[in-house]
């Protein structure tokens, strides 16, 4: 058993919806495992994106790296399709000029096939999201797909 980040395209994750898209800063940048690349919102709030996992995963720690995000809501779904989301986090973030926001959320283990991240408001007209990290213990043997 080891800790795995499920929010990686290399782990089978995908971004199946994003309300903004700049070709140069696409939503896939959130799950590429790099903090240098990012997704930008392109105006007006709320904005959201949905990450799909390749199976139902168990997450015990969630991290987000972003900039200028003020109010954030995170929901999860355990359905096969991206429906029936339940809210698991709503938080007002702080932001320091020129510093990436690194927010950690810990909770008792949750299960999810999809994560929905909603940016309700911001400290400026645009925000960036660099990474979402969803860590959980993985058993090497459980490679089953739906």
């Amino acid at each position: 058993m080891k800790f795995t980040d499920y929010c990686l395209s290399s782990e089978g994750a995908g971004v199946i919806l994003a309300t903004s898209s700049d070709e140069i800063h696409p939503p896939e940048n959130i799950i590429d495992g790099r903090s240098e690349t990012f997704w930008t919102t392109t105006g007006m709030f709320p904005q959201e994106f949905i990450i799909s996992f390749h199976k139902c995963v168990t997450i015990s720690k969630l991290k987000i790296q972003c900039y200028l995000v003020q109010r954030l809501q995170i929901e999860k779904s355990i359905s096969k399709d991206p429906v029936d989301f339940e809210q698991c986090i709503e938080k007002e973030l702080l932001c320091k000029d020129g510093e990436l926001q690194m927010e950690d959320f810990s909770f008792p283990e949750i299960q999810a096939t999809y994560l929905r991240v909603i940016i309700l408001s911001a400290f400026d007209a645009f925000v960036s999201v660099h990474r979402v990290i969803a860590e959980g213990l993985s058993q090497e043997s459980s490679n089953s797909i739906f």
Partner: protein
Amino acid sequence: MVKLAAKCIVAGDSAVGKTALVQMFCNDGAHFQKNYTLTIGVELLMKTVPIPGTNDSVELFLFDSAGKELFSEILDKLWEQPNALCIVYDVTNEQSFSNSAKWLERLRIQTSGIHIPGVLVGNKIDLTDRRVVERKQAQQWAEANGLEYCEISVKEMENFEAPFHIVANSFHRLYKEKVEIFNSLV
């Protein structure tokens, strides 16, 4: 290529020509509204403005707002989280110009300290004999308050696209500046 979206508040005293301007812009100069209609609350119109020299564009969501005091409480709610401002006055009406300060102040409350692009628009310049607000005076006030300035005649279809091109370009520039900052974070 990126398509930006901006909530642009169009405000100013009643009967200065806000609705005529927004309608004219959104129907590409096809129709000048001759009869006055009182706007209640807000009318929302959308138009995509291409940014010259790029493949980018800005979708302007124009919140054409009531000028009558009567609707001010509704407006404060509808104006939340604006991205751009367009304050219109009538160059033949001194009070509509002096009230621009009041409109700007009310809109600034909504922006909670964030700088957002804005333009002051002098309308009805076709009425040269009745003009009471001089260009220089209005331009100076706009500059002092961080706004761009332009003069138009919706009736003569003169320069009516300028205010929206100004805010769309400023909003696009703001986006590019922010992306530079995002790039420098890590």
